[in-house]
Each structure stands twice: as structure tokens, then as C-alpha cells.
């Protein structure tokens, strides 16, 4: 068998197990369900490894594997295949999806053990993995769109997994609809691409675009902007970020997999994938950087004000993806991907950890009702600490430091970078450290307020530990020049994505690194002061309006409510019964009116009839003679 056909198996296996679970789910035991659900992902992870090995073996020569599975659409000049292609970019994503995914699946077996919907859960999860793999492996943009929507669907299904609570359903729909808004813009962008170039193959499209479109031409800008809209929706960036915090209504493994590690970074993938297009539209690319910067700040502040453990993580996710966008915006492609990978490790870890906390505290989400958990669940504490440290980019030991620093550096140093972007990044980094350790101190230190009802099993802690290790050492695949100058990751990525262009500003990287390390540490220390040493400092802030403003996500929800939701609902209410119906009612009224009118003449009186006779003949004769 050709090695490349393995690629098709990647999405096929989880899809198959999804089918099995969906069709025969009720005949399977809970154990078998978990086995199939997690096992299939395990196999895929293994397969990814095999493919990766193969890939690395032939590295210098072959950059892309492609496999055509079947002809999908053939209409007019639109010819689309179900076909996958694998390059290093996809490979990184596949790796994250399958490995992190596998760990999360493993974790889920324990996490969902008592939930009656476990079969549904695993079915959806598997479907998600399949869709996500399709997304990253698709060799044409329509197939990518298929995966794109597929993950959206799974996200919807899993957010609303506990369907009995109407709020969950609301959150799920919100997520779907908001991302759908972005997707619609994106599909229009796809239309433009197809209409202009007559193909939907991403590779060809990019070639043709760079050949035919002038840089900065309006069509390129429009197309790039439209695709960006899709990415913004999916990756929960400004102004479409509001769905993600609500999406935490789903089970924690879902948050970990979909709303932290993989799906939300699809936007990053899309932009990276179509990077040439964005290079042709520098305005849009710069807008990405700005959006990223703004988002990371806004989300950072919001995270600081949250009470709900998972919402903190959610805002943190938004913020971190903001970093990735910032990186994309300044053309630091591989930095973005690097941060994506590291982020996947530590954010999955954090979510899983949070999941354990919440689970053992009987669905307690409020961090202020937790506390002192350090002793009671040491494994969770340590892994959570590692995750938070990585998130805060504590220097040297954490992977997050390497990835984030790279972004910060490029935010300033790349050709389109600027000081302002760097300042935003560094403020964000400070905020990150602050809220991360706010979490740690409030949840794990201090006096305990709620007692855990049981201890988490091995199946849950092992993935935590693995992820914690990855969060620590993951960063060593890419070391800055000032510190080891080891770049296998960016070399890998640069097979596909362009190299970041650096302004000629001399070797200041070490300075920036030091600065950010200090900032991160300051953040941690400040958190220690405010939230542990002198909680009164934070308490006063907790009730301020500003805090509430931050907590409500800067009022975006409210704004959208008044601007969009209220008018739409109003519109649908005022004309519920379809005012066109009045046309019919009017006509039938008219007919009935005429009927009653004419009916008067049919009153049975002979002389009336005679009168109508005579009037009729009078009219006829007068008309005929004197018209």
C-alpha cells in the first residue's frame, strides 16, 4: 500500500468509529464505548506517528503527500475531489489533534464514566476528530470548508451536550451561529477565489493568486478579509469572540479539545494555509495583527475578572489565540504555529485539570468557593501549576516561554511589526501571568471551602502528567538564537510557510526576552500579593463597575444583543403571521362584500327584478345610441 493512502485513513478511522458508536451505541457497554472511542483516536495517533516518520525520512525531497479518494463535485468548471494532502503544516496540526486528542479521550473515559450520555459523547468526539483532520488535511478549500463546518457542528453538539439545561443549548446555538456568520463571509471569499481562478485546490489557488493578483489589489484585500472573517469566527477573535466563554457549558474534555487545543485554532490554520493571499493583502494582514493585539488585551482583562474557573481559561484561550493572530499578522508564521502547538499542550492540560477540580467538587465552577486544594489533590495541583506557568510563560523552564517570546520578539522585529504591537503583547503577557496565578492562588492555596467528593483516578491523572511534561519540554524543539539557537520546528514549518522577515535592528532579542521574563515574574508576584497575601486588595476591585465590565467581556454580548438579537426577534414577532396573508384576506373580504352587495338584488321581489331589467335596457339603449 502506498504510504500516502494512509493519509486518507486518518480521518476515516475516527469517522468509522463515530459511525459504529452512532449506529450501535446502545448495544455497546460503557467500557466498550470508551475503548472504541479512545482507541480509534489512539490508532490514528499511531498512524500519524508512522506517517510522520515516513515524512521525516524523505524530508528534503518530498514536501507534500497527496491522495485523491474520489471525485466529489463536478459541475460546470467546478471540479472538486475528496482529496487529502499532507505537508509539514498539516502534520503539526495532525500531531496535536491526534496526540492531544488521544490524551483527552483517555481522560474522558474516566471523566464521563458516570454520565449517561457517554456513547453520544464519544461519538461526537470522534466525529470531531475526523472533521478536524479533514480540515487540516484537505487539499482543496471546499473540503476544508467541510471539515470547518463539521467541527462547528461538533462544537455545537458538545457545548449543548447536557441538553436538559436550556442555557447550554443557548450557548451551543450562540457558538454555532456566530461562527456561522464568519463562515458565510468565508464562503463568499471562496466563491471569489473560485470564480477568479477556476479551481479550489489550495495550492493552485495560492500559486495563481500570487501570479495574477497585484499585491494590495482590492480584490485580494476583499478576499483576504472575507477569509479572515471565517477565521475570526472560528478562533473567537474580535469582534466574534463572544461565543467562546459561553461555550464552556460543555464538558471539560470538550473545552480542552475543541475550545482550547484544536478547533479554535482552525482560524490560525486557515490563515497560515492561505498565507500567500494575506501576503498579497498587507492591509488585511496588518489588521490581523491589530485584531490579535486587541483581542489578547481585552480577553486578558476579562480573564482577570472572571469567577468561573473555566471562563477564566476560556478568556485565556481567546487571549492566547490573539497572540497567534498577532504572530500571523506580523508574518511570523512559524511562531504562530509553534505557539499553537504549545498552547494546545498547556491549555488542554489546564482544562483537564480544571475538569478534575470541577468534577470532584461536584460541579462547582466558582473559584471563590474553592481553595486549599493543593494538599488534597497534589497531582492536579502540580500539573495545573505547570500549565499555568507555561501559560504565563515563566522563563526558561516552560514551553510557553519559548513560543510566546518568539511572538513578542517578532511583533517588534518583523518587517510589519511595531513597538505598539509589542507593548500590547507584553501587557498581555503581564495580564496572563496575573490571572493564571490568580487562579492558582485562589483555587489551590488558602483555606479550603469545599471538599472534594472523591479522588481522580489514574485514567485522568496520567494524561495530565503527560501533558504537563509536554508543556515543559515542548518548547525545546525551537530555541531562540540567544539561547541555543535551535530551530528544527521552524525549519519544518518553513517548508510550507514563508520565513519571517526581520527588520534590521540588530540583535536585541535577548533584551526583549529579559524584559518579558521580568514582566511574567512580576505578574506572578503581583498575583501572589493581591490574591494570596492581601486579598483585600482584590476584594475592593471585585465589586467595581470596571470589574463587572471586564467580567461581562467588555459588554460585547450586551452590544450584540441590542444591535442584532433584539431587532431580529422583534422583526420576527411583528410579522409572525406573514403580512402577505392580508392580500388573501382582503381579496376574500372583497368577494364577500360584493356578494352581500349583489345579494341584495336577489331579494325575491318581482318588481326589483323588473327594475333591473329596465335599468339594464335603459343603459344599453342609451349607450348604443349616444356613446
Amino acid at each position, binding site marked *: 500500500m502506498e504510504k500516502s493512502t494512509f493519509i486518507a485513513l486518518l480521518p476515516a478511522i475516527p469517522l468509522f468509529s463515530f459511525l459504529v458508536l452512532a449506529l450501535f451505541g446502545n448495544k455497546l457497554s460503557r467500557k466498550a464505548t470508551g475503548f472504541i472511542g479512545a482507541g480509534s483516536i489512539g490508532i490514528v495517533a499511531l498512524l500519524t506517528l508512522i506517517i510522520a516518520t515516513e515524512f521525516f525520512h524523505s524530508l528534503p525531497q518530498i514536501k507534500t503527500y497527496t491522495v485523491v479518494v474520489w471525485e466529489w463535485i463536478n459541475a460546470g468548471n467546478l471540479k472538486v475531489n475528496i482529496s487529502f494532502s499532507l505537508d509539514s503544516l498539516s502534520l503539526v496540526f495532525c500531531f496535536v489533534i491526534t496526540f492531544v486528542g488521544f490524551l483527552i479521550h483517555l481522560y474522558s473515559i474516566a471523566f464521563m464514566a458516570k454520565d449517561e450520555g457517554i456513547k453520544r459523547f464519544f461519538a461526537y468526539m470522534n466525529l470531531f476528530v475526523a472533521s478536524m483532520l479533514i480540515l487540516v488535511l484537505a487539499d482543496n478549500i471546499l473540503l476544508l470548508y467541510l471539515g470547518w463546518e463539521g467541527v462547528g457542528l461538533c462544537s455545537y453538539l458538545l457545548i449543548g451536550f447536557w441538553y436538559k439545561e436550556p442555557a447550554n443549548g443557548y450557548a451551543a446555538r450562540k457558538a454555532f451561529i456566530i461562527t456561522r456568520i464568519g463562515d458565510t463571509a468565508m464562503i463568499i471569499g471562496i466563491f471569489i477565489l473560485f470564480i477568479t481562478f477556476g479551481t479550489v485546490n489550495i495550492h493552485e489557488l495560492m500559486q495563481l493568486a500570487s501570479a495574477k493578483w497585484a499585491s494590495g489589489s482590492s480584490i485580494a484585500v476583499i478576499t483576504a478579509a472575507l477569509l479572515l472573517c471565517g477565521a475570526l469566527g472560528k478562533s473567537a477573535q474580535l469582534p466574534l469572540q463572544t461565543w467562546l466563554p459561553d461555550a464552556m457549558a460543555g464538558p471539560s474534555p470538550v473545552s480542552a479539545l475543541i475550545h482550547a487545543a484544536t478547533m479554535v485554532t482552525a482560524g490560525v490554520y486557515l490563515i497560515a494555509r492561505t498565507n500567500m493571499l494575506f501576503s498579497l493583502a498587507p492591509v488585511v494582514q496588518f489588521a490581523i495583527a491589530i485584531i490579535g493585539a486587541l483581542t489578547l488585551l481585552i480577553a486578558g482583562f476579562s480573564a482577570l475578572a472572571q469567577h468561573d474557573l473555566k471562563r477564566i481559561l476560556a478568556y485565556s484561550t481567546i487571549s492566547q489565540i490573539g497572540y497567534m493572530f498577532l504572530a500571523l499578522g506580523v508574518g511570523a508564521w512559524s511562531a504562530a504555529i509553534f505557539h499553537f502547538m504549545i498552547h494546545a499542550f498547556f491549555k488542554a492540560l489546564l482544562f483537564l485539570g480544571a475538569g478534575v477540580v470541577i468534577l470532584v467538587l461536584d460541579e462547582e465552577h466558582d473559584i471563590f468557593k474553592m481553595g486549599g486544594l493543593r494538599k488534597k489533590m497534589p497531582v492536579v495541583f502540580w500539573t495545573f501549576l505547570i500549565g499555568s506557568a507555561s501559560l504565563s510563560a515563566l522563563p526558561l523552564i516552560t514551553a510557553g516561554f519559548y513560543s510566546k517570546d518568539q511572538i513578542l520578539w517578532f511583533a517588534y522585529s518583523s518587517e510589519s511589526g511595531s513597538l505598539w504591537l509589542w507593548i500590547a503583547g507584553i501587557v498581555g503577557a503581564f495580564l496572563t501571568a496575573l490571572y493564571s496565578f490568580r487562579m492558582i492562588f485562589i483555587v489551590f492555596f488558602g483555606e479550603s471551602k469545599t471538599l472534594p467528593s472523591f479522588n481522580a483516578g489514574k485514567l485522568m491523572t496520567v494524561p495530565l502528567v503527560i501533558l504537563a511534561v509536554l508543556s515543559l519540554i515542548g518548547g525545546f524543539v525551537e530555541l531562540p538564537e540567544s539561547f541555543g539557537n535551535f530551530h528544527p520546528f521552524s525549519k519544518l514549518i518553513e517548508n510550507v510557510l514563508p520565513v519571517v522577515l526581520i527588520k534590521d535592528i540588530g540583535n536585541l532579542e535577548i533584551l526583549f526576552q529579559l524584559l518579558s521574563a521580568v514582566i511574567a515574574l512580576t505578574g506572578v508576584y503581583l498575583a501572589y500579593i493581591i490574591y494570596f497575601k492581601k486579598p483585600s486588595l482584590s476584594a475592593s476591585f471585585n465589586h467595581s463597575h470596571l470589574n463587572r465590565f471586564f467580567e461581562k467581556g467588555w459588554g460585547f454580548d450586551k452590544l450584540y444583543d441590542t444591535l442584532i438579537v433584539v431587532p431580529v426577534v422583534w422583526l420576527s414577532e411583528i410579522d409572525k403571521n406573514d403580512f402577505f396573508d392580508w392580500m388573501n384576506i382582503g381579496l376574500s373580504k372583497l368577494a364577500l362584500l360584493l356578494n352581500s352587495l349583489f345579494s341584495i338584488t336577489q331579494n325575491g321581489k318581482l318588481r326589483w327584478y323588473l327594475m333591473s331589467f*329596465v*335599468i339594464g335596457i*335603459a343603459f344599453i*339603449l342609451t349607450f348604443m*345610441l349616444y356613446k
Partner: protein
Amino acid sequence: MDVFFYIAVAIAIFSTIMAISRRNAIHALLYLILSLLAVSVVFYLLSAPFIAALEVIIYAGAIMVLFIFVVMMLNIGLEKSMEKKWLNPRMWIIPSLLAGILLVVLFLALSNVGSLTENKGDILPKQVGISLFSTYLLGVEIAGILLMAGVIGAYHLSSQNKKVTHRFLEKK
């Protein structure tokens, strides 16, 4: 001769007006007979002596007698008070107006005729007879059938029911 025509016309119109406006049925019928007689004079003047005779005999004679017979039979005199109520003077207005319009139309139509020329000569009753029994023979036969139908119908409709049910009982 024209004078006679106008006199006859005047009488005819006058008596017709009287006929349609009397409350008493018998009076009205007598005026009607007068009107028919006047018209028969006109027929005579229009070189139709035979028709004039027929008018007197059949119309004024037979048909009107039939009327009088029915009026007598139903003893309509009793309903005189009703007639008074029915014959509200205002009720004349609209019908007269309508008929007036039609008459004006007819008058105008006639004034447009213009080129009608008068032929001289008479139509003798003999001619009428010959025409009736040659050209229009089939018409006469049909008229016979028509009369037969009339007779049967009049018989059927006027015969009383043997079984008398009260009309209220007949209702469904």
C-alpha cells in the same frame, strides 16, 4: 283622416294612463278596453281592418272578459285598501323616469330614421289571409300546438288539488 288618428291616439293614451292608475280593478279594465278600442281604430286607419276587428273581438272581448272573470272570482274589491297602500304616489317617480328615458331614446332613434319613404296602397284582408295560410301556414300550425299547450297548462294549473293539505303542514 289624420285627425281621426290623433283623436284615437289621444284617447288611447289617456285611457291607458287611466287603466294603469286606477285602484279599482274593474274600472281599470274598462279603461283598458277603451284603450284597446282606440287602438283598433288606429289599426283601421293603418289599413288593417281585419286586425282592427280581431282586436275588438279577441282582445277587448275575450281576453278582457277573462280578466274580469278572474277579478270577480277573487273578489279583489276587498283589497282596495291594500291597493291604496300599494299605490304610493311617490312610487310613480322612478318607473316613469326610466320609461321616460327609454321613450326619449326611442324618440331620438326615430328622429334619426330620416329616409323612410311612404308607400301608397292598401293591404287587403284577403292578402293577409292568403299569406297566413300559405307562407305562414306552418306558423299557424305551431300556434295551434301552442294553444294546445296553453289549454293543457291552464287546465293543469287551475285545477284544485283533491287532497287538501294545509300549506304549513307541507313544509319540510
